[in-house]
């Protein structure tokens, strides 16, 4: 393998990933590890959301549905069978298959229309799954949810941390390659000008369905990790909040980048944690979502590229070049 062809940014990401691998040896605090795990899990989820929003320009209001499908599939399969590695693998498989089917159907039904139809349908479907999870109590335990047992080796939080980190690294580099592939370039073209992409001879619907399925499957995998880290499930995984979190992470971190959603996930998760701690000082911190609303509006107005997007445009110098070197 010729290492000279690897981009410099790749080395930076690899170095950062390696750094994260030694974190469990530095922090022994269980809650700290759990926090970082949540960042990884929601990072994966937000990256899958950004594939739709940032890369292809598809708006989804029901991305939580895939997260929830993953979470419930894994939990139910593990609950019904004995807690072995085999049933975990079966759970992941079921999660991925259901998410693929649902995202395929949602995509085929609405993506040939204008984007808000997809937003509406996913919102409706996510609501449907939420109701199903509440009412189908024999399977889902209803609103109270249920706990389940994990295979022996996953009960150690260090192991769980490593699994989440490895998943994150695999998805990050996998998606990075995906977005830099010829197909990834067409996705960006669709975001920029759908009409023109069509007249260049690309079948736009195919691309949208492909990206919808990939985003759905990855989101469901994030859901599986989430439920494994909690060892408990309830209907909150289908809540609109989960989608809004992904939206917020993506917007603050930087739409149309992969590192952006990860940065966003880190900020949102940690801010959530610390702000809730400040609730003793003033009640407003209990309602941290209000603050996020303000941050969100400010970000969209003054910081539309997000953190990663702003840094990137500074580095690549593309914008300034365009303005001054006409």
């Amino acid at each position, binding site marked *: 393998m010729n290492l000279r*062809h690897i981009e410099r940014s790749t080395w930076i990401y690899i170095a950062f990933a390696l750094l994260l691998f030694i974190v469990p040896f530095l922090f022994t605090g269980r809650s700290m590890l759990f926090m970082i795990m949540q960042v990884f899990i929601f990072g994966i989820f937000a990256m899958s959301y950004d594939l739709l929003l940032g890369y292809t320009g598809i708006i989804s209001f029901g991305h939580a549905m895939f997260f929830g499908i993953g979470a419930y599939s894994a939990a139910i399969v593990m609950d019904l069978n004995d807690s072995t590695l085999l049933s975990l693998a079966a759970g992941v498989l079921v999660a991925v298959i259901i998410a693929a089917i649902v995202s395929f159907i949602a995509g085929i039904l609405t993506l040939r229309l204008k984007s808000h139809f997809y937003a509406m349908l996913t919102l409706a479907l996510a609501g449907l799954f939420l109701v199903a999870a509440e009412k189908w109590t024999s399977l889902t335990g209803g609103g109270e949810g249920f706990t389940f047992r994990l295979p022996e080796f996953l009960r150690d939080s260090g192991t769980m941390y490593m699994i989440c980190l490895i998943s994150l690294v695999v998805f990050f580099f996998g998606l990075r*390659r*995906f977005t*830099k*592939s*010829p*197909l*990834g*370039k*067409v996705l*960006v*073209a669709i975001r*920029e*000008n759908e*009409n*023109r*992409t*069509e*007249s*260049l*001879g*690309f*079948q*736009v619907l*195919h691309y949208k369905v*492909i990206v919808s399925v990939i985003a759905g499957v990855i989101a469901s995998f994030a859901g599986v990790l989430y439920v494994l880290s909690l060892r408990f499930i309830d209907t909150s995984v289908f809540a609109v909040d989960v989608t809004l979190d992904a939206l917020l992470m993506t917007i603050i971190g930087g739409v149309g980048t992969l590192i952006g959603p990860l940065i966003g996930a880190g900020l949102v998760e940690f801010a959530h944690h610390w702000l809730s701690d400040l609730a003793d000082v003033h009640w407003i911190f209990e309602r941290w979502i209000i603050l996020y609303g303000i941050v969100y509006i400010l970000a969209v107005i003054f910081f539309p590229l997000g953190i990663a997007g702003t840094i990137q445009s500074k580095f690549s110098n*593309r*914008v300034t*070049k*365009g*303005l001054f*070197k*006409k």
Partner: protein
Amino acid sequence: MTAILETKDLAIAFGGHTAVDHISVQIPEKKFTSIIGPNGAGKTTLFNLLSGQLSPTNGQILYKDQDITKLSTTKRTRLGIGRSFQITNVFPNLTVLENVRLAVQSQAKVRYQMLAHFKYYKQFEAKAMELLERVFLDAKAELRAVNLAHGEKRKLEMAMLLALDTEVLLLDEPTAGMSLEEVPAIIEVIKKIKEEEDRTIVLIEHKIDMIMDLSDEVLVLFHGELLAKGTPEEIIENETVQSAYLGGMYDEQLA
């Protein structure tokens, strides 16, 4: 003469207004056909029907004797009908090079490759650069398309169309909005395609001298109808065209 594109009784109405009014015409293969007519005559609408942006309310479109009336824009492009747009229609936030490269990629049929890195397709970039040189835009390859001047965007349109390498080129006012210094260069590009490549070119233009110089055949549209058809010389001498086209223009100006 064999016709590569043919319309049969083609019509489209927007509400009560018939923009293209039952036009039956044959576009000869490997010839240069121009379409003229005053503003609002239905020239661009006819292009939109031919390329699939709009679907007709009546009639048929044949390409190489195959009925393509119901085919999507994508399919028609793949069959070999490429077009450029009068109102500039590019990917604003991509670089000039990326714009053309997408068209090259489509032409090379690398459509669903999602695992290989783009840098393994160096030939796309080389081809795109070559096309940019042809339209004198290579110096601006790294600029974002949104930052181009209007005339440069028209050149970019041209490069993207050429990248598709289609048998039929539908050119919708390629020189519209260009500065006077830029126009001769683009006419040269079009001339070169006509002389050196075996393509069917259909051109919409207002510049009469350009049309007289390049065309094998001229179609005159007026209020959505096909008013006349013939060689440039015939059209110049055609009295109906003179009174309707010129008269119509004067009427419009007086009104």
